């Protein structure tokens, strides 16, 4: 990611972000307490309720920063353990995000103005595969959560009813339940956080939404944050290189070229990355 230096020294960066999130939380709590005092002293019910409302908003922002601080501290701890251990895979920030949501499988997508996925970060193979299906088919929970700026979920047969392409395909991956919440702040939506086969009770609980808010407020849309999530966010560089190639070879737009690659990948039952890799190696020529 061009934004943030978290990919270079994730541990130091996460430690710094954890400290900053804790300081912001304490600050918001102080602001909440101030308005609670004003509410106590308010001469009328209306003024009291206005101050209580402002206090509640500060408290909810404080809670966001607390969650964020915990996610970062957890990542620092896992990273520290890993650095001391040896040949285990490098810890991923998204693993902690998934755990905070009560699942192993969580994926975060960042979108542009057209709602097309620009980047993704996934906690494990199933969530990556599910997100890949959304990318290939242009439909699914993350896209809907982003477009509608509200939570989306579906289970079992409802998957295919809601998404005729994505539903059956994600069911074939062995996933029975999907849910997504928008990454939005102050009416601006930059993507979605999706979970797959979450623990019972997560969807509809405040936790899932709070984790998404914490990531948005503290990491993605924060001048001190790291929208690259410490190198976890993948831009699909190879797919876009292949897109450029196909567009030149077939004299078509990059939009059409990307659609061709996606269609080819879906038809072959492989990822866009796999197809792109073959195109860039000149082992495959579309059209």
């Amino acid at each position: 990611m061009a934004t943030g230096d978290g990919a270079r020294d994730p541990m130091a960066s996460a430690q710094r972000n954890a400290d900053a999130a804790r300081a912001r939380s304490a600050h918001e709590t102080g602001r909440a307490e101030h308005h609670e005092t004003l509410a106590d002293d308010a001469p009328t019910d209306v003024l009291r309720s206005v101050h209580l409302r402002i206090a509640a908003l500060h408290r909810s922002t404080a809670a966001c920063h607390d969650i964020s601080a915990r996610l970062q501290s957890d990542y620092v701890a896992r990273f520290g353990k890993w650095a001391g251990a040896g040949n285990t895979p490098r810890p991923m920030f998204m693993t902690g995000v998934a755990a905070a949501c009560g699942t192993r499988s969580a994926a975060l997508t960042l979108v542009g103005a057209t709602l097309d996925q620009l980047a993704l970060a996934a906690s494990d193979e199933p969530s990556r595969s599910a997100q890949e299906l959304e990318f290939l088919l242009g439909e699914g929970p993350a896209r809907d959560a982003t477009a509608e700026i509200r939570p989306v979920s579906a289970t079992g047969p409802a998957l295919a009813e809601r998404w005729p392409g994505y539903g059956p395909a994600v069911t074939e991956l062995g996933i029975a339940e999907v849910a997504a919440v928008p990454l939005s702040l102050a009416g601006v939506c930059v993507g979605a956080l999706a979970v797959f086969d979450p623990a019972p009770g997560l969807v509809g609980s405040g936790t899932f939404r709070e984790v998404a808010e914490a990531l948005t407020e503290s990491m993605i849309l924060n001048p001190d944050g790291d929208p690259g999530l410490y190198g976890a966010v993948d831009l699909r560089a190879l797919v876009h290189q292949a897109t450029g190639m196909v567009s030149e070879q077939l004299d078509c737009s990059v939009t059409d070229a990307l659609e061709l690659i996606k269609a080819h990948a879906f038809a072959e039952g492989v990822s866009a990355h796999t197809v792109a890799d073959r195109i860039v190696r000149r082992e495959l020529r579309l059209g």
Partner: protein
Amino acid sequence: MTSMPLTQQRLARAFVDLARSPVTEPSDPAGLLASLAAHATELLGDCAAIVLYVPDEHTPAQVAGTGEELMRLAQDAADLSEGPGREACRTGRPVPDTALDGEQARRDWPRYTARARQLGYGRTAALPLHVGDDTLGALVLLGRGGTPLPAELLALGQSLTDAAGWPLERDRRLRETRALADQLGQALTSRIVIEQAKGTLAARLSITVDEAFRLLRSHARSNRRRLTDVAREVVERRLEVPAE
């Protein structure tokens, strides 16, 4: 507080005005300030109220008040950079009830004091308008005659001002959030266009993507252009980047 013509209904209306703007749309600060001034005047008994708002050093001070004379006084005070409002704004602390014919007022705000006394005011106080961690303005109260402004009136004024600071803070955060979201979208889109251009150029010149990237970068450097702009033109076939 029985001496004040304070009704639930009036307060309710004040805060409906203050909190009306939806969270997703920036409110109009001028309207917010005007309604703060109007409602403070209405709520705080015989006091006149002026709101001073200085969003940043590059923006002229905005004032709101009820009545032409008061507005002129407020504007002149802002232009002269003097008076209780400026002081509360600068220090971030309230200016307590002060006699306008007293030594301190005449010394600290000579021009302001004369003007306010001509309009018949004898007492003043100012309450800072906090927006987040900053003080971006003040609510100035002016009382007729020599009776000191009661402490509970100042407390109510501050409570009202603190409530008014919140929509202003929310607006500021909304603007920052939008700017950050735009930056993020642009950063991602730029990176993607550069990857596409590597592929386009690699296919066009039958070279590897790494070689294509070196060509793009050196073309951008030697023509003093942004890599993203060069990449976009390559992808849109508006620019030929020659092989080395």
